[in-house]
């Protein structure tokens, strides 16, 4: 410590590190159903407290309670469960494929499945997401073929992106999924721009931007909030707070602010925090914000409180920086199990049917995988050509690239 009267640097630290016992008891978790649901045309100044609370629907007994419980039907919820289970199985298989050397890299969603799967179902056709690398649920829940995802991951001859992009950096325009950039934060402002364009054209389509807790520190987060606020762009700005940014705990990006949602208050935006492991809550809050945007009432900032159960990517090993058991201690539980339990309570699901569904889904994923692997994997079988590498830099290949392609002998 510094002498009295001397300055010293404060560096935030997570409360536990490897070797310590995880403890989330200091994280205040409001009771499910306890947070009010304002009308979508509410004056943002009246709901500042929502940035410091957590909107939750599913209680411990698996019941959906309170004003945000929503109106999803049994079928819709069963479908939601299936989407999350599919994503989880997809992740498991692709992680394994990476370990088998079939691709170079993979990033999983374990623990965060509800966020992208539920959000997707609140959108309309034509709406556009600007996702990060951890929202593949938008594709799964949007009906994008798994085999195309795998073809991209394998960089094989059927890869829709011709082998040009790192695995999982999907692009699927027709499914409302913007080309993922590996650069953090850049797409948050692009989402705002897309939404502004829709407003300029008197369209009805809205945009959704996505960003991680760590990436809110990036400057383009600010650009997005400034532009969204100034032009009241029809955009939903989503922060997925999974507590970690690679090895860095969320306190480094959040600093002295109570929550990430609170960042929106300085821009006069409605800012909501929601239990990101609660499919119903995510869907309901997403609906609210999307309706706001569509009714030209402007942008909404949403923080999804969740937890990154797995490693950051296949290049990462979290046991070096957090206790292995931290995810078990995470107080918001597992999104798949919580929705499963709710459906059982609702009387439309059972442990058996769940097991059966697991088997079916594994089958589906494996079938897709076999299909994809017929087109090759990164280091074997069919692959995009060297010509593909030279094409698509511009709409028309300029002379210097033609010369280079020729030099390359293709």
């Amino acid at each position, binding site marked *: 410590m510094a002498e009295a009267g001397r300055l010293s640097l404060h560096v935030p630290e997570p409360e536990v590190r490897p070797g310590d016992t995880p403890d989330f008891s200091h994280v205040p978790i409001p009771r499910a159903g306890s947070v009010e649901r304002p009308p979508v045309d509410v004056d943002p100044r009246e709901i500042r407290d929502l940035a410091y609370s957590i909107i939750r629907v599913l209680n411990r007994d698996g019941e959906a309670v309170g004003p945000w419980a929503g109106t999803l039907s049994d079928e819709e919820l069963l479908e939601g469960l299936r989407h999350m289970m599919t994503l989880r199985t997809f992740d498991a298989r692709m992680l394994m494929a990476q370990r088998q050397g079939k691709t170079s890299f993979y990033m999983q969603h374990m623990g965060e499945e509800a966020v992208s799967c539920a959000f997707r179902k609140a959108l309309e056709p034509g709406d556009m997401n600007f996702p990060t690398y951890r929202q593949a649920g938008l594709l799964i829940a949007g009906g994008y073929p798994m085999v195309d995802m795998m073809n991209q991951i394998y960089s094989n001859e059927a890869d829709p992106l011709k082998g*040009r*992009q790192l695995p999982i950096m999907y692009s699927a325009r027709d499914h409302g999924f913007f080309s993922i950039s590996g650069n953090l934060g850049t797409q948050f402002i*692009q989402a*705002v721009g897309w939404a502004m364009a829709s407003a300029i054209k008197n369209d009805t389509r809205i945009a959704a931007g996505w960003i991680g807790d760590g990436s809110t520190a990036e400057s383009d987060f600010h650009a997005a909030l400034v532009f969204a606020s100034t032009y009241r762009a029809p955009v939903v700005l989503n922060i997925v707070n999974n507590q970690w940014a690679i090895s860095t705990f969320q306190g480094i990006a959040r600093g002295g602010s109570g929550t990430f949602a609170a960042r929106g208050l300085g821009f006069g935006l409605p800012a909501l925090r929601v239990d990101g492991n609660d499919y119903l809550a995510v869907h309901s809050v997403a609906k609210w914000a999307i309706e706001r945007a569509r009714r030209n009432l402007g942008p909404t900032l949403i923080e999804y409180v969740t937890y990154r159960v797995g490693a950051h990517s296949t290049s990462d090993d979290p046991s070096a920086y957090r206790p292995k058991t931290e995810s078990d201690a995470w107080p918001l539980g597992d999104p798949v199990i919580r929705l499963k339990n709710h459906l059982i309570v609702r009387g439309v699901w059972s442990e058996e049917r769940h097991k059966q569904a697991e088997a079916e889904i594994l089958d589906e994923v494996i079938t897709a995988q076999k299909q994809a692997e017929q087109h090759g994997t990164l280091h074997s079988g069919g692959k995009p050509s060297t010509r593909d590498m030279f094409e698509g*830099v511009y709409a028309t290949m300029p002379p*210097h690239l033609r010369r280079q392609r020729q030099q390359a002998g293709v």
Partner: protein
Amino acid sequence: MPRMTMIEAIRSAMDVAMGRDENVVVFGEDVGYFGGVFRCTAGLQQKYGKSRCFDTPINESGIVGAAIGMAAYGLRPCIEVQFADYVYPAYDQIVSEAARLRYRSNGQFTCPIVIRMPTGGGIFGGQTHSQSPEALFTHVAGLKVVVPSNPYDAKGLLIAAIEDPDPVIFLEPKRLYNGPFDGHYERPVTSWAKHPLSETPEGHYTVPLGRAEVRREGSAVTVLAYGTMVYVAQAAAEDTGVDAEVIDLRTLLPLDLDTIVASVGKTGRCVVVHEATLTSGFGAELAALVQEHCFYNLEAPVMRVTGWDTPYPHAQEWDYFPGPKRVGEALVQVMEA
């Protein structure tokens, strides 16, 4: 045909493009109500409404990032960065996003945006109103880079750039906005009204991207120049009497290599001129290409006359600026080599 200044020609290009295509939108700092600090967008908001021409917050990354999103939607944003010196905060959006969007999405999303910015020195603007950052863009695959040197070209190239399906960096030599400047700063400046290339059609036309133009025919040495330096090179040729062929590159990326090679094949000598700092300037690429493609025709090394490798100074502007004297000396020297 009407005569226009560069500013009027640039404004007219946007006017024509906005009139023909509802998807063309124009925005930037001070661009809307006021019409831009150089007045290049004056009147456009009034004519096309606030949704199509508007002021933005001062965030260059935001301006470009929003434009990319709009382009992905289907618009054709033509945006202004107030000075090229202020483009760096947007560099990530340009390099990592705009330039690669078509490629990485395999054409699902494209990025037809134009980023206009006043460039170059000669106005005592000091280090933050004088820079020439073109080489920072010519290194980036996926971009096109344009530098007009006169009103006719400025309008035709800008319309072509707006209609182009890919992102274009459009650098406007601010020293030329109101008249062709030949670097003789101690002499009275002429206005565009007296220059033939200020004759600019009112309506739609394009000057295709990727084509250079010979501004002065000559047989002794080829001078490669763009923007303000086109006039400096011409003045240097007149001043020294060296029979220089002056090529106005107009588009730096993609480059019109054929025109260059044809000329150097004829003259056997080459001088490259630009305002930007020497090291890793666009002149390096030009010199490299010329020696690659014309090696056996060259009778002397390709010389570069450029800004020095210092930040752009204020008081010493005319020591820094590669004026007709320095260019002329190079012409003489390359002839003696």
